[in-house]
Every structure is written in C-alpha cells, then in structure tokens.
C-alpha cells in the first residue's frame, strides 16, 4: 500500500448563475515512502486544485484521499485530526506564505505538536531551520530580512515541523532564479530521501521535474493523461499531449531546433471537448477520439496512458509511427 493514495478525485468550482467548472475530472495517483512524484501540466489544467484537494484545502466533490490508509478530512474551523498533520504543503510564493509580523522561529514552531510545542519549541524550531540549511543565528529575524530562496527554506522548515509523511509542493521553485531553484530542488530531494517522506512535486516546468521526480503524472484539462517512471518518459511518450509538452521545451544543445508550440489554445474547462479532451489539438486524433473518452489504462512496464492509440496491457505504440500513418481527413 502506498503512503498517499488518491482515488477518482473530482473537484467542481461552483459560481452562482454559472455552469460549474470541473477543475479536476477524476484523477488518481499514489505516492510511496521516499518517493518523489512530479505532477505536471499547463496552467489551468487543475494540478494546483488537485494538490489543494489532496491536503484538504479544497473540498472534494467526490473521490477519496487516504494517508497511511486513513481518509484525509478537509480543513475546517476546528483543529485538524492528528493523523492529517502528516500531510503538509509548501506554496509557490514565499512572500505571501509567511506572516511578515512574526519572528520566523515562532512560525516554524506553529507546526510542532505534543511536548515539543511547549518547553523546547524554540530549540526544535532552530533544529528545523538548521536542517534546511539556515543558521541558528537568524531564528529571531522577520521574513522581510530574507531573500526568496531563504524564505522558501523557512516555509519548508515549517512544513517539516509536524513530522509529515507526505509533502505537497505546489510550484515551490517556480518563482525563484535558476540557481536558487536548483538549491531548493536539491533540498527537497535530500529531505525526502533522508526522512522517507513522500513528495508530490507540482510544477509546470517539466525540465525541473525530470531531474528530481521518480515518477511523473501529466495532467490535461482536469484529467491525468499519462503516468510513467521519469526515465522512461524521457525516452518515449505514449500520450500525444505529453509529447507536445516535451517538444515545447527549449534546449541548451548547440544548434537546437526551435521549440514547437502545440496547435490551438487550451479549451475552456467549463465546456471541455467531447470524447478525448485533447482531440481538437491532437495531431493523430481519429474518429473514436471525438466521441469516446479514453480512460487511463496500464499500457506496459508500469506506464499508463489515456489514449485510444495505446491499448490496455500493451504493447505501447510509438508516437512517431502514428504520425507517419495515413490518417483520415479531420
């Protein structure tokens, strides 16, 4: 059994007088101990909503999230059940996620529980700050005295305080400079491995994810369309959308070809296309894709895809082969 299990999660955003928007339309994933799972997709695909739904910040319309086999309850006005403290979150913007008027050790100590929260709180908070690479001398400072990267370290220290078993990091390195991004990404990897935690790393940046994640889940318009071990995903893609994402990444190679933008725009999530949600932008769509919605099935070797070209149980069909096939006019 995995540490964190997410089953068929659906999240609707309801606005009075408007059609509800299904931000997450049935997503499932698992995060194991010491494992880093990358969740990628374009803005508006529902990855942040799914992340917030997992930690309980967003009420699920249906579906279930369990941590160590225990269902996670949504955050309410009352204190969270002790078991749910095992699920912590790190947010994108380290400027707005810390209280500007409180000393940082106190903010880190907020997450402490039991005996640690009382007499030894300051000592434990300082240890946590040291574990994320900050020195004990800065414990009494305020957030404005720190750079973006340092603030993100403080936010991580705070998330570590209740000894979580899973951390959800939502675009935790996206707002940082390249070098600071590398520092924080490395820190998250080290902490995950040392503490045997699970890490769900949500990002729009596939190139960071390919470096730190063990598994990758790709999301498009509220659905997970492909999951694979990272190394395999880099060798070949099974879903045309994943392929489009990878081909849009600019390369540092000499004489690299220009990145390719996929056709069309992301459709309005309030009125998703019929059939496969990617079909209007898909270079290899067939008739079936326009009417029937493919579900995520295991194709081979622990890879899964939601594409009619990829039969359940495999063998996987290489996308290059699909594109050279003669297709009926769209």
């Amino acid at each position, binding site marked *: 059994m995995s540490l964190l299990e997410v089953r068929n999660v659906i999240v609707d955003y309801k606005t009075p007088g408007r059609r509800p928007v299904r931000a997450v339309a049935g997503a499932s994933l698992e995060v194991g101990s010491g494992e880093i799972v990358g969740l990628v997709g*374009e803005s508006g695909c529902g990855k942040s909503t799914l992340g917030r739904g997992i930690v309980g910040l967003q009420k699920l319309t249906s579906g279930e999230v369990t941590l160590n086999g225990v269902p996670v309850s949504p955050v309410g006005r009352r204190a969270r059940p002790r078991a749910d403290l095992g699920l912590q979150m790190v947010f994108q913007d380290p400027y707005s996620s810390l209280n500007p008027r409180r000393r940082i050790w106190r903010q880190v100590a907020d997450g402490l529980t039991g005996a640690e929260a009382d007499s030894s709180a300051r000592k434990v908070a300082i240890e946590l700050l040291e574990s994320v690479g900050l020195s004990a001398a800065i414990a009494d400072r305020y957030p404005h005295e720190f*750079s973006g990267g340092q603030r993100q370290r403080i936010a991580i220290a705070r998330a570590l305080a209740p000894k979580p078993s899973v951390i959800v990091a939502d675009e935790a390195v996206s707002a940082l400079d390249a070098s600071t991004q*590398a520092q924080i990404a490395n820190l998250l990897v080290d902490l995950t491995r040392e503490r045997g935690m699970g890490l769900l790393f949500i990002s729009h940046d596939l190139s960071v994810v390919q470096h730190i994640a063990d598994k990758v889940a790709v999301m498009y318009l509220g659905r997970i369309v492909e999951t694979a071990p990272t190394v395999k995903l880099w060798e070949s893609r099974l879903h045309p959308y994943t392929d489009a*994402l990878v081909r849009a*990444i*600019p390369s540092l190679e*000499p004489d*690299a070809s220009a990145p390719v933008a996929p056709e069309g725009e992301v459709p309005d999530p309030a009125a998703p296309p019929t059939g496969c949600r990617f079909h209007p932008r898909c270079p290899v769509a067939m008739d079936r894709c326009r009417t029937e919605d493919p579900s995520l099935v295991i194709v081979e070797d622990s890879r899964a895809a939601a594409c009619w070209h990829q039969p359940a149980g495999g063998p996987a069909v290489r996308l290059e082969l699909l594109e050279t096939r003669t297709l009926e006019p769209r």
Partner: protein
Amino acid sequence: MSLLEVDNLSIHLRGGRTLVESVSLTVNAGEIVGIAGESGSGKTVTAMTSLGFLPAGATATGEVRIDGADMLSMRPKQLQAVRGSDVAMVFQDPMTSLHPMLNIGTQLTEHLRVHQGLKRKQAWARAAELLELVRLPDPHSALSAFPHRFSGGMRQRIAIAMALACGPKLLIADEITTALDVTVQAGILDLLDRLRRETGMAVVFITHDLAVMNVVADRLYVMYGGRMAENGSISQVLNSTRHPYTRALIDALPEGAALGKALVPIPGEAATPDRRPSGCAFHPRCVFAVDSCRADVPRLRELEDGHLAACAVDPFGALPDRAQLLDIALATPKDPRVAS
C-alpha cells in the same frame, strides 16, 4: 551604424550605489540580442535606460543612441515621440500590463491615434490586423472584449500587438515568457522570430533562462553585479564559454545537468547593488578565484572574434596546469549555503 548603441554606460544612485558600470552593447536591425543574468545583475535597468527611463534619483554617464539619436540628453517631449513609435517595450507580467477596465480595442488604438493620428475607424481596423499578426483567434470580437477574458499567453500576445502598433524598429522584451507555460512560450518565441524576419525589427530579449536564449537569440550578453561578464554570438557564449559565471549559470539549469543527477546550484548569494564584492563581483562564488580577483576588477577582453569575457583567470581558455586548477577548486569552500 547599429540601431541601438550603448557605450560605456554607468548608472549611479544617490548615496554612491552603482547599478550598472561601464556597460557597452550594440543591437543591429533584424537581430535578436539576449541579456542574461540573475536578479540584481542590472539587465533590466540597462534596457530601461536605453529608453530614457532612469530610476528615481539616478544619474547616467556614457552614451545611449537609438538610430543615432542620443537618448540620454533628450528632452521629455522628444523621448515621448521616440518611445512607442521607434522603440517599444513588453513586460514580464501580462496580467498587469493591460488595463482591466478598458476593452482591448481601446487600449490598442490609443497608440495609433496618438502617434500616427489615425481616425477611430482606421485605428480599429489596424488594431484587428495587429491581433491577426500575433495570431490571436477571432481578432474582431477580441477587440471589444476585456483583458480578464484572455489566458496569460493570449494577454502576452495582446501586449506584444500593442507594442507593435506603430511598427517599432526596436522591441525590448523583458522576461516576457518567464510567467508562461512552455507550450505558450514556444508560440511567443516563434512569433518574435517571424516578426523580425518579416519586418526587420530588432529585439532585446531579457531573461535568466539560457535555454530560451539558445533557441531565440543571435548574440548574448551575460551580466553580473552590474557589469558585463561575457558576450559574443550565442554559440560562442554557450558552447565555448569562457567566464566561470556563465558556466555556473548553465550548470544550474535543469537542461544543463545530466539526467538523474542533482542540480548544481551556484554557491552563495547573487551580488546586488547594495552588496557588491570588491574586485570581480563574482569572486566569492567562483571556484577559480585567485587573490587578484578579490582586488582588481577584471577588464572585458576580446578572446576571439567578437567574443569578450571579463575574467582574469580565464580557466576555460588557456587552461593552466590541470593539477593547479584542481588545487584552486579544492581550496575553495564548496557550498557556504545561506549566509547568516
């Protein structure tokens, strides 16, 4: 004569802080020129000063000429005529560069009516053409819509259309794809490339993302601590890198590191105008630094045709004895992490 010539530009703040020191760069018509560096490196302030926008209380010395006209000595009226018609600028955040309460048409036609004296109807028709040029779907109905209706990528296209309204010779693009998804970024990069081919417009492209530079820029300037660290053609700077800072920037990128290996951050903190180390500003973070780096500011030297770097050690050029190089690397503290 180049379209944009920045010659020995220095920008000082009251109180003696230096934002930019002795920076020179040129941009030719039809060229995409990149300026790279971390936050605080002076890349944005250099570009803004080229348009005659100086930070409050700052003084600039040196020369900035656009099409031969001296931008630093121009009166506000003259500057106003140049900005928006000869040069235009697009910013990072497409959410704040459009007015939320005016429709797209009103915002797009304002330029045309002020700078080119077009009548309302003509301006509206031209605005639709501009939206078509940046490949915004359904340009006519877009004109009467408000900014909140559009996604980030579409808004950035609208901001670019607005900048293109008067057919500028020079476009300054400051981190315009940083906030966008890679898929949308690819579309914007393609658009810029097409525009400079079709219209001969030059682009100054500012970003810290060297992979983006690699696919879009012809030449690259790398800045650190307000000074020029290295510049040359894109392949000179990225493939036969001579400055340790450029190398470190490349290695810190996920695209630069080997798959499955940990990323290699640059140790320490980036220099800022408030805290600029003596000598070579990069020396505290540099594994190759020697004593003279702490004392003397290195001169920007031409290493090969059009390829310049400001490094006294030049570790990747005439490589010193390998053993000696290793000694230097080992003697330097590896990752001081975060300063207290």
